[in-house]
């Protein structure tokens, strides 16, 4: 089976680097973007299985990016996982409205990150 491809999106370069190095070490093919616009631009090229998205980003926030991905005919099946700072009830409702599939509360614990990514890829493999 081909390696799963993941796109990590965060305006904080440190956060991107941490996620990237951890997920690469787990054997995933990892691509990165530092903003919503850049993330959307890379979809065609990267064809990710999952997108990890920070909620709080300048210009285009994570919810908006999630909505754009989930509304797109070719990318709607991509798994969208949000990084959220609070993860409270209203945050999750907002996530649901934007079509997100899962979330991770910041600061990110790496084993948590690994498990969350894997369970979403599992769903994608099953439905493929």
């Amino acid at each position, binding site marked *: 089976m081909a390696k799963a491809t993941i796109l990590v999106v965060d305006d904080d370069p440190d956060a991107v680097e941490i996620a990237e190095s951890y997920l690469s070490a787990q054997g995933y093919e990892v691509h990165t973007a530092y903003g919503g616009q850049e993330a959307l*631009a890379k979809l065609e090229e990267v064809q990710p299985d999952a997108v990890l998205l920070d909620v709080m980003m300048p210009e285009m926030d994570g919810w908006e990016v999630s909505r754009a991905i989930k509304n797109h005919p070719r990318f709607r099946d991509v798994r969208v996982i949000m990084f959220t700072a609070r993860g409270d*009830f209203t945050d999750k409702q907002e996530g649901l409205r934007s079509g997100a599939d*899962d979330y991770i509360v910041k600061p990110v614990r790496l084993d948590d990150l690994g498990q969350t990514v894997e369970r979403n890829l599992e769903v994608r493999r099953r439905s493929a």
Partner: protein
Amino acid sequence: MKIVGRVRDEGLRRGLADVASRLGAAVVDTSGLSPDGMLEAVRAGANVVVLELEPDVDLSRVRQEAHAAGAALVVACSPEQECGEAVTAQADEWLILPVSSYELEARLRSAMQRSAGGELPPAASADLLRYQELLFDATTGTATLPTTMEQARELLERSGRLTVLYLHFFRFERLEESFGREKLDAVLKTTADALRDFCAMESTGSGSLIAIPFVFDEDFVILTATDRSTHSEPAAWLVKLSRRLEPFVRERIEREHGEQLAALATLYMGISVPEPNPRVRTERLLYRGIREAAQAARSAEHWELASRVADLKRTIRDGAVFIEYHPIIDTHTEEVYGYEALARGVRQELRSPEVLFEVAEEANLVWELSRLLRRRAVQGIIRDLSPDQRLFLNVDPHDFEDPLFRKPDPSAMGIDDPSRVVFEITERVAITDYPRFKEQLDTFRSLGFRFAVDDAGSGYAGLGSIANLAPDYIKLDISLISEIDTNFLKQNLVETLVNFAEGHGAKVVAEGVERSEEFETVRKLGVHLAQGFYFHRSNRVRRSAA
């Protein structure tokens, strides 16, 4: 990215600056330089050269130099005749002034593609992706009107005449409010497919076009080539057409989504036949035709609503309603915990409860209708319930304004033991006067009645307002349950609501369970009760006869 520009036209200059800032590109203005000075700038490196035609400049040479430097050439012409020169010189793209900055951007982009020039910067290609989204509807695969315009013009010019049909399914709004946006998305997809099939079936050879006004819109526009004979009586023709089209679409929706949703597919159609006129721009002619047809559809809607009010009055007078009882299952024992009573009108046009209440609101008959339905719902089942089973009844917050309901008399309602009756209050209708509303609930509570908050988690209210009502049951909205087995965000929200309910001594009911995976998931998450079509289809429970 670098653009070398040599332009005189003020509008073009501004447009270029606009586009450059959108693409994050730098503009090198060479209009003050000699033609050779401009070529110098091109050789220094550029992605695209934008040139306004002038006698001193040798176009072919500019093109050669530009291509040698890996840049594309775009030529702006003021009168149309000049375009010939641009074409002969093999410019990558040309345009006629005046030009909007959006057209300019599109021309630059296609020139760069054609000359196999540089890649677009990420911001631009993200924009491109979003523009694409605006052209075709993702849910139905239908083109939007602007995308269809060119074809429509062709069709009109080929056949000499177009008929514009505007289709408005006015209860789709209600469908979405009750069943969630995913459901309406799916119904719209079915509708679009059905319309395509219908048009293919009807098409006289010249063809027709189906479009939607905007992406994610719920209305449809059909442009169809028709001969003169059709239009001697367009209104009569429309009536005949809609008599075939509406059942066709409805049947398809019923087959794919069930009777309940099909009952909400009420179609209103408007027609217009734009008169071709050489003085009028064809696109505007079509847009006006579409607006006219849309207005016609709307007045048809008002006309018919009035006749439905008369139907409702008859319905209430004759008591022409029947009640369906949907089982609510204990997720642990898988036995029937109780039934939710749902009203149906007997008359075909008033079949769905959403329609019933909509018309009742229009006719100011909500209380009368509610009283009738409550009485019927209780009479229909109360004797068949086993002692530990409960009856769930829907009440509208407006019902609490009904003086007859506000002073509840259980025996007059046919209820011996109020503790077996649960009133469902929807979270969707805003409660304005909380203290007073609570007071009214307490009157019912003191008699033993129970309460459920309906549609929880649908995004209308947070946990705070649910807690305020201190319900005995929290019914989770269908939008939280559908596909919950693959969405971990939904799972997490449901888990939160279950914990919250247990902390407040309430039970959680999952509504709209349709698949075994969904049932398994909610059971694992600790949801106490479940209902939905999954339990109707399987033989787990027998429908109680009303």
